[in-house]
């Protein structure tokens, strides 16, 4: 009984402290390399939406880099409230290694927590001087390919699996032939950046290579940034269905007192307004009506999935990108 005053003081202090800081909230979105422009536009829309809904001002800070590197940063203590990474394996790593969110995180939002999709296309120089139309054109002598390091970049992992999936489809799922194909592809890669944005700079700004294996949205952005007269986008007949997922980092958000706004931030990615923003930034929206509206921006192609072709991300990661995996076996720095 005699400690009631102390407990009361503590409770009042907590309320007082919270009240003193009410009205403003900040989120940290840790994302992969090419989403800067998407989230810059989306954050403005969400802040407006959240202000109208809750009355609070929300400031969203962004952090971008190679998806694998970003996941490792969160595991090492980067205090992300939400992660919007290139592939589910990277968020699984955060869940498994740092226990910052539950293992079933992907089931908490629609479409396996993937509000938009994308794929891997080819960005070539104007006139496509090397005549690159499909994945097998990449292994021709004299073709120089620019792509990021799949050890650190999510987009590069999608690109690698896109090429591998093409080989499996082409050679009747003969894994030895597919491995030989991917070896030849990476023999034509003179340099590996750590992230997708870096490889865009290498190709478009530094003038290296004949073809950039790029996220579809990144290819469009490169055209926009560096001149549509200088580059062409080639969509191969077959590529990989890239599904970049999103998740609240529960423990960080709880500690920051941002759980509600973080959840709303991700849920709003499925809203009509957000789906329009995603489509305008050349991410393939989930909403069928909005996807139809922007159909001209997204050529039809055969899209294979990691689950169907590689048995899921965990298996694909272990087989191809873990230390000593296929990539380590076939890639020799030049």
């Amino acid at each position, binding site marked *: 009984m005699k400690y009631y005053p102390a407990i009361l003081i503590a409770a009042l202090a907590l309320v007082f*402290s919270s009240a003193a800081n009410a009205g403003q909230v900040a989120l940290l979105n840790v994302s992969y390399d090419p989403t800067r422009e998407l989230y810059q536009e989306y954050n403005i829309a969400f802040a407006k939406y959240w202000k109208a809904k809750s009355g609070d001002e929300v400031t969203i800070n962004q952090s971008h880099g190679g998806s694998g590197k970003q996941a490792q940063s969160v595991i090492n*203590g980067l205090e992300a409230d939400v992660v919007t990474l290139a592939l589910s394996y990277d968020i699984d790593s955060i869940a498994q290694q740092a226990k910052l969110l539950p293992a079933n995180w992907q089931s908490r939002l629609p479409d396996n927590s993937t509000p938009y999709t994308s794929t891997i296309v080819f960005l070539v120089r104007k006139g496509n001087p090397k005549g690159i139309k499909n994945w097998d054109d990449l292994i021709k002598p004299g073709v120089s390919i620019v792509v990021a390091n799949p050890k650190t970049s999510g987009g590069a992992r999608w690109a690698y699996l896109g090429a591998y999936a093409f080989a499996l489809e082409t050679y009747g799922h003969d894994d030895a032939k597919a491995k030989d194909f991917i070896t030849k592809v990476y023999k034509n890669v003179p340099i590996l950046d*750590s992230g997708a944005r870096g490889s865009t700079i290498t190709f478009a700004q*530094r003038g290296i290579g004949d073809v950039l294996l790029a996220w579809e949205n990144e290819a469009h952005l490169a055209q926009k940034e560096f001149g549509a007269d200088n580059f062409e986008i080639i969509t191969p007949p077959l590529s990989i269905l890239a599904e970049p997922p999103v998740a609240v980092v529960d423990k960080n958000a709880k500690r920051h007192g941002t759980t509600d706004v973080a959840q709303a931030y991700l849920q709003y990615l499925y809203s009509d307004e957000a789906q329009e923003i995603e489509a305008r930034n050349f991410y393939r929206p989930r909403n069928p009506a909005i996807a139809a509206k922007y159909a001209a921006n997204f050529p039809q192609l055969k899209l294979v999935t990691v689950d169907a072709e590689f048995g899921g991300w965990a298996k694909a990661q272990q087989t191809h990108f873990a230390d000593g995996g296929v990539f380590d076996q076939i890639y020799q720095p030049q």
Partner: protein
Amino acid sequence: MKLKWLLLTAVVGAQSGITALGQDTNSSSADIDALKQEVQALEQKVNTLEQQQAAQGSSAQSPETAQVQDLDQKVRVLQRQHELDQQAAADAAKAQPKIALNANGFSFSSADSNFVAQLHGVIQVDSRSFFNDGGGTLGKNTFLVRRARPIFTGTVFHDFDFVFIPDFGGSGPVIYDAYVNYHYSPGFQVEAGRFKSPVGLESLQQDVWTTFNERSLVTDLVPNRDIGFELHGDVFSGRASYAAAILNGAPDYITPVAPAQDVDDDKAFAGRIFLQPFKTSDEAFLQGFGFGVGGSYEDDRRTAADLTTGYKTDGQQSFYTYAANIVANGAHWRIAPQGYYYYGPFSLLGEYAISDQQVSKTTAPVASAEIRNKAWEITAGWVLTGENATYNGITPRHPFDPRNGQWGAWQLVARYADLNIDKDAFPTFASAGSASEAAAWSAGINWFLNRDIRIDASFSRTTFSGGGGTAGQGPITAKPENVLFTRLQLGF
């Protein structure tokens, strides 16, 4: 053939240039620029050749053109690889632990700043010279190491701070502060361990930044360090701070000689609110104004250990103690309104304190009384060299460097303080020789050689009146105390 030789020269030049890049980063930019110029010159030649070929009706790419393009790509790849290597090196450097050594001490930090350890320290070498004390005061003219404290602070897992401060300046090592602070946010922090009780303004000021060698008489009436839990924080952008603590309970200001031991089951409550309403104002003359109030409450149970071991003069002589058969017995509360004003080189700090304690005499004839002691002080300062005075010290604009005519910062300081013992303490509860009032004025000059080194000199005169306990004036209180203090301080 001429073009071929030119191309071969370019290859050799490019490759040797890139090799040099790895060896000498400083020359890399110049080398790369040179290579770029060479490549551009070659491209121009190729363009000219291509135009000539086009004019001649030839559509096929000449071998020379292909070779130049191939070389161009190789140079570009080498340049880009160099950029990526530099970036990777920069990223790796960011991931390394950081070590810093500067005026704020030694600091070690993990790359992500989640783990930080800092080493600070305080050494104070004092002298006290008592004048005209032959007939009365017992002060000894002496040199002493007043404080010798390594200060270990740090942060673990981002939100948990720790402080550990032992002192080696006395007869043996004593732990002054040892606590862990969890900071959820600036406005909500919880501290546990041994720390300063959140009551007195002067008491809470860091030892290295007090105006005089010793704190004033008003600090005699507030608790010093205690053990327990404290909830505290700064809110409204630092314009308000609060602290609420539950503690073992401590007597009026004493210097701990050992980790405080609780003497009863009851706990003390202490709290403080301090406001700086104009801290973020545009009006500079208002920014340094702060005021607040601290207080505490404890129910003491028949123990002499809850009574002060003696109210001290500036010269650290006890001028008032309770008699041997007196115990604390009942409520003990304190209240301490306080404030300061800092504007440019001017500083003013004032505090008033009441310590009200129920006491009993345990031997016949038994007696009880409520003893309400009061004290106040006011301290003013002026930095002659113009630097800003603050509650957290003075930073000289021109640190001491006589070779370049720099002499640090100089501050004149003055203080008046008074402590009044409740008249009901006499003659039953006060010890023989205790005075009922002490009044002290002090003046001095402080020389801040730099942020870390300080030399002080001050004079303090304390006069005593009343009291006398059961045996009249004692040797300490019979005559005024006159003390000249000096101090050499290293604090970082």
